[in-house]
């Protein structure tokens, strides 16, 4: 235990995701020894991000205005929505430049054991959004783990009666790996999602 405000800083840092007590201590002492100008910049950006950034009223992505940059962009395809768990997934998909539609950010995955059910995510908002729209396809791009899979299973069941095309991102073998190291689930999915080889 350290005195007063130093310990407060360690405690606050320790509440951040992925920061254990040891890392919290290391970051705290880094801050204590840093140039005041650098620390001021960090403080300013922290304040600014909380004041300026909010969540897009349409898709739930982070936004600096009422709607995010993607929802405001008239050139994006209005007929396709890609459903993801978090804003950082939007960034990852945008980097591929493969997708020209719009997004819907759920805010996580369904996880009954953590007490997170469908009502805790932005699923109702998705259904409202789809109710009167020209969307013809919904791509389910939740994480390729079992919680993401269960969330996609739930969404697919909700979306089926709407008569839309519902697709799931193909999961398969990571590029750059050896086949023999793939686990049974990954290899099984890769077989399911195989595509014709027509060059």
């Amino acid at each position, binding site marked *: 235990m350290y005195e007063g405000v130093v310990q407060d800083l360690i405690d606050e840092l320790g509440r951040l*995701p*992925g920061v*254990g007590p040891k890392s919290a201590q290391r970051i705290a002492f880094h801050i204590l020894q840093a140039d005041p100008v650098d620390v001021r910049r960090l403080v300013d950006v922290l304040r600014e991000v909380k004041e300026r950034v909010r969540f897009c009223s349409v898709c739930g992505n982070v936004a600096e205005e009422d709607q995010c940059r993607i929802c405001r962009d008239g050139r994006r395809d209005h007929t396709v929505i890609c459903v993801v768990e978090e804003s950082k997934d939007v960034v990852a998909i945008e980097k591929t430049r493969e997708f020209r539609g719009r997004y819907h950010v759920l805010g996580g995955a369904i*996880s*009954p*054991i*953590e*007490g997170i*059910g469908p009502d805790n995510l932005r699923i109702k908002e998705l259904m409202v959004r789809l109710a009167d729209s020209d969307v013809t396809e919904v791509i389910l791009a939740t994480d*390729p*783990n*079992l*919680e993401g*899979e*269960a969330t996609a*299973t*739930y969404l697919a*069941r909700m979306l089926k009666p709407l008569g839309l095309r519902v697709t799931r991102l193909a999961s398969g073998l*990571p590029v*750059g*790996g050896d086949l023999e*190291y*793939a*686990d*049974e*689930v*990954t290899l*099984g999915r890769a077989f399911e999602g195989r595509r014709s080889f027509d060059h």
Partner: protein
Amino acid sequence: MGLYRDEAVVLRTHKLGEADRIVTLLTREHGQVRAVAKGVRRTMSKFGARLEPAMHVDLQLHTGRSLDIITQAETLHSYGDVLSGDYSKWTMANAVLETAERFTALVEEPALQQFLLVVGALRTLAESAYDPAMVLDAFLIRSLAVGGYAPSFDACSRCGAPGPHKWFSLAGGGSVCGECRPPATATPASETLTLLGNLMEGDWESAVASEARHQREAHGIVAAYLSWHLEHGLRSLPLVERT
């Protein structure tokens, strides 16, 4: 202990740092174990889907200072993969895993019976052998029994007078006779008590012949009994989707 090998079911996972996970396991020989799976969140990880919830795996672990480290994992049964493709069953599997976690919270104390119950419940859910909701209830009652809270569905839980009795008391440990009956008692249908007894003993032939209303009543009693004995209720239980 150094390096050791054990069979396990993955109960729960937590993100750790950039790419690791803390995996809570129920092992066959070492009870509940919390271990680190390094790099498991990278898509190139050698573990792939093997350390996801409800997977039944053969593991090699290395004893660590606070948490053990998983060094190898092989799949025995991909129950989690099957169950995540059926939302309703997935919610039930979550309740199974959370219950097992709570009943084996004393880390590394062997819990073979609880382990066998979990594997059995996941297998039965995955194979769709019986009505999933009844599979869950049977698992919950038997977990209570293994945990030392076996309710009585026949003889009086206080004086042992042979049943069946009309009254059922959560605090009193199940069926109670007219003499022993404490103030707050329920009066479930006798068919419901018979069903609960069948589920506890694994008499599926009789259990599947029961009526839906008695199954519903039985579920209510199991859920109430469980939350009576666990300090705080299960998070997953209210989210279970009974079809």
